[in-house]
């Protein structure tokens, strides 16, 4: 077990290293113009040159990379260039992460609380109206562009209930709509997966034996199927939770939620390299940790899995 964790950890570090390096190099392919922004027009070429040199962009690429890693090892993620000049990247991120975390976790909880039971019920009443209704919902969510219904929800529901349109952390009521919007998608996907795993599980032999034992259908559902169906889900759960933290770019922009969603987009578009690099590091780590936790969680719920026995790639 310990050995396994070490190995996994080492692997993850290598993966992270590759990812961060790749993104680092990709960022250097961006046009230099981006670093100057609107100011470029009024700067003389010499001034621009000084500016770019000060940013370190004139060093040989390997030197830049080396400096980057040295700083990183010192725990210095650098300072933002074009997003919030001279503000340490970590300060920017830490300002936002709480919002995203709160919304993300809340949305995951809401969507699990609604999506999972929905999926269970759909599986139990497979082919009947509830199942159809649920499927209709899922198809709707998949099919209709979310930016259309998010905006409709925001405008009409706030209008109908006379709520403020924008998010205001001090007013609990303004948390509700973004949360609902944020959960609509995950609810659909949880319901869909849960239903599928339940149906798969229901077709297994041990269910037949349980029935033959005289166990009630409902008991079968909850005591046998549910937990087993949760296993494939459990593997993805931490990853989904962690990734929900990144938030929905669109919802955050609509409701003025100062979360991480738009940060990444903004950071890349503004070519704020240190910020992008830190974000990539964070997101990738989250992904990798998520995967790892998923495996651990799975091993916890599934007695069949022992660590170290064959490296499973999900």
């Amino acid at each position, binding site marked *: 077990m310990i050995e396994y964790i070490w190995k996994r950890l080492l692997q993850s570090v290598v993966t992270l290293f590759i990812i961060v390096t790749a993104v680092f190099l990709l960022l250097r392919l961006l046009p230099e113009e981006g670093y100057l922004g609107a*100011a470029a027009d009024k700067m003389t070429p010499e001034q621009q040159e000084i500016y770019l040199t000060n940013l370190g962009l004139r060093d040989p690429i390997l030197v830049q990379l080396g400096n980057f890693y040295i700083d990183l090892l010192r725990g210095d993620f650098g300072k933002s260039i074009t997003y919030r000049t001279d503000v340490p990247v970590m300060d920017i991120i830490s300002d936002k992460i709480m919002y995203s975390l709160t919304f993300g976790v809340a949305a995951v909880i809401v969507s699990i609380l609604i999506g999972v039971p929905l999926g269970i019920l759909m599986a139990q009443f497979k082919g009947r109206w509830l199942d159809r209704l649920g499927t209709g919902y899922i198809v709707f969510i998949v099919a209709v562009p979310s930016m259309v219904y998010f905006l409709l929800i925001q405008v009409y529901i706030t209008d109908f209930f006379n709520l403020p349109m924008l998010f205001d952390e001090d007013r609990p009521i303004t948390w509700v709509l973004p949360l609902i919007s944020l959960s609509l998608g995950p609810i659909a996907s949880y319901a869909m997966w849960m239903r599928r795993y339940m149906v798969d599980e229901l077709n297994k032999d041990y269910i037949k034996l349980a029935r033959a034992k005289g166990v009630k259908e409902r008991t079968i559902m909850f005591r046998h199927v549910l937990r087993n169906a949760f296993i494939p889900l459990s593997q993805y759960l931490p990853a989904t939770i962690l990734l929900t933290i990144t938030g929905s770019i669109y919802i955050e*922009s609509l409701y*003025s939620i100062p979360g991480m969603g738009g940060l990444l987009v903004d950071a890349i578009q503004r070519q704020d390299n240190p910020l992008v690099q830190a974000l990539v590091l964070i997101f990738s780590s989250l992904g990798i940790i998520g995967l790892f936790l998923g495996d651990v969680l799975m091993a916890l719920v599934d007695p069949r899995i022992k660590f170290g026995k064959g490296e499973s790639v999900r």
Partner: protein
Amino acid sequence: ACSEDEEETKEKESVYRIVYSGEIKTLNYLKTSETNEFAVAANLVDGLIEYDKYGVPQPGLAESWESNEDASVWTFNLRKGVKWVDYEGNEVAEVTAHDFVDGLKYVLDAKNESSTAWIATVVKNGSAFYDGEITDFSQVGVKALDDYTLEYTLEGPTPYFLSMLNYVCFFPVYGEFLEEKGDAFGTSKENFLYNGAYLLTDFEPQNKRVLTKNPTYWDKDNVFIDKIEYKYNKEAANVAPELFLRGEVDEAAIPTAILDDWFNDPKKKDLIRQSTTSFYSYFYAFNFDPQFDAEYEPENWKVAVNNKNFRKSLFHALDRVSAMLTEEPYEPESLLNNTITPKNFVDVDGVDYTQLEPLAKFTNNDSFDKDLALEYKEKAMAELQGKATFPVKVLMPYNSGMPDWANRAQVIEQQMENLLGKDYIDIIVYAGPSTGFLGEIRRPGKFAFMEVNWGPDYADPSTYTDPFTTGGTYNKPELAEGYTDTNGQPIYDNMVNKAKAAIDPKERYPLFAEAEAFLIEEAFVVPYKVGGSGYIASRLNPFDAQYSQFGVSNEKFKGRKLLDKPMNNEQFKEAKAQWEKERAQALAEAK
């Protein structure tokens, strides 16, 4: 939140709320040159001078000033008792002349990457210090003669220097504080000192910022809005109108797309008016140094663009009203600009610069003229026969991040091709990158005919003639064939230099107007419009703001009052006419 109990005692607080989508990167006014950034600083920090609502310079931190004969040495007497305070209003220090020296020193230090340093080089040895040629700052032309006397020595005669002081690079900074904070200066409300009308009491980037009236402000009786609340929303353009209707904000720009809807709704109709224009000038430029891909035939373009008749045919063929309809469908003419320098920029004895003799004929006539266009086309066809291949490919890029521009480009393509005939020109609308557009397209010359813009750097006509002199990165008219003067310089450069040599506006301005007229007459550019567009719903009165063509004054909330009801368009026009009248008077008085 802390103001709740105050409300009962005081009369109702005047709060102005707005949503915005462009966040500022920094509060460091010594570094930035971006409007939305220095717009914040303008309310937090005062400079030496400010303007009144008609554009007449008024004392700011300087109570009085004088300059020498040729306007190359300027002396300012500072107001006493003005304090630097922190965001909670606690006094930190007094504002002295040294603070201006410290500010300029910071700006001119290359390692601080100030993007406004180039303006500050007007000061003697500023450029040399910036380039590191001299390291002793005392040789630079700024001196604190004592705590309350400040002297600027300039590189040369600069009659418009006063207008430059309205720019952030000449703002004061409390040197000790700046040193203490280092790079962190201006990164948060705490890392900042205030001497202006407002304090930044809340600053959460990408979330909100709140400006609260500064109780220690030297001129606090002229500050009427108690609080300005900015709420960030990336979709501001889409949600702001709705927020305005619900009374959640006090200003909203109304996107062109939904204008009809507002105008057709009697309830909404009275809420909106045209927005005021800016001094940004937009024009279509003919590129004399085409560097684009062979597929768009740069050589052929070069031949064509060097033919005056060809240029003139395009010049007269551009239906600017039709293009303008994409952003201002109701009164497109109101935004059009027939010269490069917009109206109301400078004047000679109350005569607006654009009405000076060389420019007046352009100012008062629309360049669009079908018949002329076709006439010139015939001539050009005849002259270019055998030299250029027709149709001439006209590469016309636009920024793909700007949907309005994309629309405009499509409209123009169709309109000009239809008028001049597809056998004559083939306009190629090309989507440029959304970031780094200028660096990718305009500066390297990867266009044939393109919409470009320019904003003024100080209140002098030379600011608008600059981009077209040798070394400019616009359309390189110096490369135009047949425009070399006897001294081997481009005719245009000579005209500009001659104008620059004159100091008295009466002499100076007409010379610049001549140069500008030359550009238009020879069809090097097609003037198009002024900046600022569309309609807004706002509880602000646009005519009580400080008026300056350049710099930060007009971003100040000082002196502004909230209206109970937003102006409608009729009221706006009335008020505008009124204001223009009053302004002419005020300007005349000021002389």
